[in-house]
């Protein structure tokens, strides 16, 4: 029985497979770095590292031909290879302890990253003007159609629909009041211009307001630009049309409608991540070196308000010193609006401890391994 398992594992134990996987990883990392110039870090991450395959689309064709294994496949193969090699050849000996520690650290790192990948919240941003308070952060990449039930006395009910699901012709049934949303048209990225700026009279556009129309743009992947979708939506209640509206993320002003007795608002806006606590910006500081414009430090003095945990305190966020609270990390990412607005990046990573443990294992393992090499080398030298 055991020998059969060993037989089965054999192809996966080869160091050749290790080298192959590491080589593939190098190609992936190289391409995924170069391509960031064109598609930005987020999209590159998705295409190269959080994927099963790299795809090639021949020009003018609607084909996706896989041509190279993506990060998931390479990582899993490497994991299998590591596990199999150790399972097949595992012998407990002092000489091997370094190697074993090193590789178990690697296994932990790979598994931990995979886990983090599956469960971690997307990174989001918290933009605060001086004195402003917010209990949510906003995605930098994604937008949502928020349908808000405003009839509650002291709280709103928000239904969030990812903007990517609003493609032309799609129908979305809401879980309340028999509401249905139908998309008549959808631009993944748009610009707002005045109606008189249209290139020609019949140019396709969505009239968003009396002063503005949305026209479609190419999707952008630039580092400091975001896509601003626009949509033409109709709302139905029990198959009866309530109304049609044109919404644009570049102009996130809610429209309101009545469905039965309830009052609703709808808005296309950056996807929000609500937090069980609120943050107020007390002061943002941008220190420069004397006589220059070189930034010396950015810092945000904030007030953290969490009634459920009886917290109401001030805190200072600055470079290399984020605020960590309830599993979230808030770090100083930027500023805007003539130093009046702070931009905090918000990350949530429940498996943040894993890399620390695996790194400790790897480092100890490597020091042992190479230390023993060095020792035997020096010994031989001394004898010679």
């Amino acid at each position, binding site marked *: 029985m055991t020998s059969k398992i060993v037989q089965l594992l054999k192809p996966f134990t080869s*160091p*050749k497979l*290790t*080298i192959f996987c*590491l*080589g593939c*990883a*190098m190609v992936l*990392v*190289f391409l*995924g*770095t*170069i391509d*960031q*110039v064109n598609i*930005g*870090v987020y999209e*590159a*991450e998705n295409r190269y*590292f959080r994927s099963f395959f790299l795809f090639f689309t021949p020009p003018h064709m609607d084909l996706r031909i896989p041509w190279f294994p993506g990060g998931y496949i390479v990582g899993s193969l490497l994991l299998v290879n590591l596990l199999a*090699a*150790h399972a097949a050849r595992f012998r407990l000996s002092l000489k*091997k302890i370094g*190697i074993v520690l090193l*590789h178990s650290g690697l296994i932990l790192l790979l598994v931990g*990253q995979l886990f983090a990948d599956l469960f971690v919240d997307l990174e989001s941003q918290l933009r605060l003007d001086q004195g402003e308070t917010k209990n949510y952060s906003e995605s930098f990449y994604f937008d949502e159609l928020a349908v808000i039930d405003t009839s509650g006395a002291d709280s709103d009910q928000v239904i969030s629909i990812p903007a990517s699901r609003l493609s032309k012709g799609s129908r979305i049934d809401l879980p309340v009041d028999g509401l249905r949303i139908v998309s008549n048209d959808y631009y993944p990225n748009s610009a707002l211009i005045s109606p008189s700026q249209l290139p020609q009279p019949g140019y396709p556009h969505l009239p968003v307001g009396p002063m503005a129309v949305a026209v479609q743009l190419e999707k952008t992947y630039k*580092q400091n630009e975001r896509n601003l979708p626009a949509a033409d939506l109709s709302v139905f209640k029990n198959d009866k049309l309530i109304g049609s509206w044109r919404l644009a993320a570049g102009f996130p002003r809610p429209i309101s409608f009545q469905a039965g007795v309830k009052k609703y608002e709808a808005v296309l806006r950056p996807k929000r991540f609500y937090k069980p606590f609120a943050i107020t910006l007390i002061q943002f500081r941008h220190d*420069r*070196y*004397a*006589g*220059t414009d*070189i*930034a*010396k*430090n*950015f810092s945000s003095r904030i007030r953290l308000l969490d009634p459920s945990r009886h917290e109401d305190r001030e805190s200072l966020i600055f*470079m*290399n010193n*984020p605020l*960590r609270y309830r599993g979230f*990390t808030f*770090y100083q990412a930027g500023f805007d609006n003539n130093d009046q607005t702070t931009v905090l*990046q*918000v*990350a949530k*990573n429940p498996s*943040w401890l894993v*890399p*620390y443990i695996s*790194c400790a294992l*790897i*480092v100890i393992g*490597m*020091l042992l391994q*190479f230390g023993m*090499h060095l020792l*035997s*080398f020096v010994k031989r*030298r001394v004898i010679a």
Partner: protein
Amino acid sequence: MKRLIPWILGLVLVVWVISRMLPPKDAHGLDLNGFAKLPVLVGGRVMPMDTLARLSLSGMNHHGTYTTAGRMVEQPSQGLLDVMMMPEHSDTAKLFEVSNQEIVDLFGSQDAKGQFVSYSFNDLKPYFSEIEKQAAMATQADSETRNPFQRGILKLRDSLRLYLQLKNTIQAEDSPDFGKEIEAFQMVIQPGIKAVRDRDAGKLFDNQDFERIVLFTQRYQNLSQAKYAFAIPSPQVPEENDGWQHVSQALLSAIGHGQVPYPVLAYCRMISAYRSGDIVGFNDVVREYSDYLSKTIPQKLDRAKIEFLFNHAQPFLQAMALYVIALVLGLLSWLFWPKTLGKTVIILLVGAFLIHTAGLIVRMYLQGRPPVTNLYSSAIFVGWASVMLCILMERFYRNGISSVCGAVIGFGTLLIAHNLQLDGDSLEMLRAVLDTNGWLATHVVGEALGYSAMFLAGLIGIIYIVRGVFTNSFDEATSKSLGRMMYGVVCFATLCSLVATILGGIWADQSWGRFWGWDPKENGALLIVLWNAIILHARWGGYARERGLAVMTVFGNIVTSLSWFGVNMLGVGLHSYGFMDQAFGPLLAFVVSQFVVMAIGCVSLEHWRGIKARGRRKESDIPVLTTDAVQP
């Protein structure tokens, strides 16, 4: 006697180089060095006038010198002295260099067919509006898409602006006698303030006093538009840089407290003395002002003085010279008198290394930082660490190979550093995110150590291939010891780069809330780790022997150079402090050259002269897999 030859030869050369490090004697009795040591705040840090002079001049022309209208090449600080105190002199000096023919054509000059054409400020005066116009258009183009003409015109415009700012650093350049002007200003302050107060209170006031003080105020407000270098220190807060003032700010605040600060008066007296050719008087004021500074801001003055000596010593250039000599002698030692020359090479290498070390330590003292803070200092440090590794290895192997490696890498990295230095102040202040000595000392230094080991391994690989393919002197013992050297260095590189990359991840987690973000610089470090893992597994698995190891370490050079410089050229990511857009050509040339060496290394063994000389045909005949090979 014969045993002494290496020592005599080595020490003579080292002493010769050290003798070149002393600052020059003052010519014509003028205390130029005294002026050059005076502190001034530029770019957020206090530097000596000497550094300001060097930085400014090297921005204006490629050799960074001050050549007067009479074609005399003077010290950079002499140039700055003229610009600041006798601008009518420096206006005629050919300071501004143009290398672009289209810009030269813009000025309609016929005599220009060389590589660089130099103009004086006065030569360019008629074209100022044209230059401004062209530069304004060039700024509208994206910085990546600018053509050489646009880049050149922007550089020229910036040089001219800098020149104007420098002229107005300690005086208003249009003042016929700034000392007299300040005297007049001092007389006006008290009555002027009284007139202003009376007027505000609705009382009768002296209109003449009022108009005078308003005139001076407007004049110094205009002057403050030229502020770039801040020469007036603040004795109240000797440790901080925030109190330093431009001369205009000092004069404006003098209106508030009624007294012109002493440093302004000292500079005025210097100007008067210098303009009237009163050398003794000038020297007296410089000494008096230095005494004042040594009482008020002793630490800043000391640092400025040390930086002045450092500028003149140019330790990295001197070390570079010794590395070259060591390299030539080292290569000769492979052919002739291996013992005598080999020993000389080691003495030279150690001498160069000590000078290199001294330079590194002084830089750390001046900046108050760990050794690596920007690309320039990373090059210095990578070279330093490689040379140290080589000296240690030479002690073990004593085969003259490590010392040659040390000389090559020492010279190469210092040459790279020298070229990077032309971009500006190499002791610049750090961007906000880097302002943490703990991580700079561990993560950044660790990465740099990894780079050094990678290049060292790659160089041994190159030597292995070149000697094996082209020379007869490649015996089995050499082959084996080169193989062991490569293996050991790769192990060290793996350790350093893996630990440093992990530390980088922890830094990222601490400050950005995520361990790994696929940022280009992170990926570059990861590529090095992956490639090292491949090399080690290939060796442990028995797929790569010495020749394989050599070819793979040469590829390691490519990976390292891309990770070190290449990712900075992408211009994306969070590690924005090291961005650069030049040097793409040299990097590409380096990568291609490494591929060529690899191709040579892959040539069939039948064509390896070194192997043929041994009468062997197959590589497998050479026992390679050593007993310490490890299988997981």
